[in-house]
């Protein structure tokens, strides 16, 4: 006799029937097209409302949401450039310190090569 509860067996059987159909629906071209159309429509309507609102704010010489969004995008790009410069600077500093270490270790090796001089540990 199976240990599985009868309700669980019933759910599993129902899920085996329903799941493939739901997945097929969600992954269908029609569903994708419909959800994309809805998203585009929302964006278009939202964009229209934002544009109308922006005109009103601009009439009283105040920034609109679209202006703030543009500014944030520009600040974001600037932030990225500054970060990249910072990382490049880190890289150069690392290369310089490695070069310095190599120079020091070359000098040390040359001193160690002299007879009687202490050996460096590996």
């Amino acid at each position: 006799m199976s240990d599985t509860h009868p309700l669980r067996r019933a759910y599993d059987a129902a899920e085996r029937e329903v799941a493939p159909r739901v997945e097929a629906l969600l992954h269908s071209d029609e569903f994708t097209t419909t959800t994309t159309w809805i998203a585009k429509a929302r964006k278009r309507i939202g964009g229209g409302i934002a544009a109308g609102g922006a005109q009103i704010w601009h009439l009283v010489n105040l920034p609109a949401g679209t202006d703030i969004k543009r500014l944030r995008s520009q600040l974001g790009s600037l932030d990225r450039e500054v970060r990249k410069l910072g990382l490049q600077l880190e890289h150069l500093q690392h290369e310089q310190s490695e070069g310095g270490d190599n120079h020091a270790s070359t000098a040390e090796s040359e001193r160690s090569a002299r007879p009687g001089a202490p050996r460096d540990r590996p």
Partner: protein
Amino acid sequence: MPALPNPSGALDRVRREIDRNVRRARNGIKLAADTTPPALGQSPKDVVWRSGRSELWHYRGTKNSGGPPLLLVFSLVSRSYICDLTPGNSFVERLLDAGFDVYLLDWGVPDERDANNRLEDYADDYIPAAIRRVQQLSGARRVDLLGYCFGGVLTLLHAAHHPHSPLHSLTVMATPVDFQQMGPLVEVAGSDAVDLDTILDDNGNVPAGIIRQLFRSLTPTYEITQYVNLWERLWSDEYVAAYRAITAWSADHIPFPGAAARQTLEMLLKENAMVTDRLMVGGDRVSLSNITVPFLTVRANRDHIVPRPASAPLIDLVGSADKNELCLDAGHMGLIVGKTAHKTTIPTIIDFLQKRSEVSA
């Protein structure tokens, strides 16, 4: 003469059911009443480097086998604490116990400042910077690099674009390369009907909610099944704790930087550049055959997010002489959390890395 039923056996079953019903009631009330989020990602660690939202974490370990340090790189669309979910169910913990010196590069939560981050920002800037920092702190010349899921894609791009990167080995787990074999996930995302600009939020990123819905659409009845599983195992404290932890992580996606999303869609998906050898990173044409360090790819046979055909070609694409493939009977996250992970995946990865450390010692 037929055997008589064992009365003590029946009594034990009745006692067990009563005990389970008491625990079901207790755990059910706790789940409903306790709104505090579970404590996740609790292994002690220090932030040893940061740039923007990204941080490099160094986990505090008490054992150090002396091998190369290990740098973990996670996906761009979900939280990295899955690698250190809960005490006793933590990939990081197991690595520390095995004597590894463990670092993790966490991408944080992207905002408008990250919208223009391209894939090369990660492959050419962040990952090399993290490797340098690991070298500085550990004193090691070379680093073992491990990427999970899309983190594996980033590590592959880094290793392919920088074949002289100081890597001791490269391991990728559940990492797609043939994006056109990703199944429903990219059939939807890659459809001509989908316009990325429509999906991006005001910050210029793909919202976390869209990412979550995309993953949910892969197995739409999974959430209901999870509730049924929970009802069935509500008596088990261990199961309930694991359920809370995994559910919290599954709901905690992060936005995907818009520029990186666009590149993923155009280059990795539509051009399928990793397998068609049309990868462009930082303006350079790169190939996975440029990768020559000791290499391991770990794939999950029941991975519904990165199906087998999506990860299978990788072993033949890398140029390493010492390359290995491990296929496990697990799901996408089952490679690092859960029983299969702790019995098989994690010990195998540890074994691979430890053997490479002995060879080079």
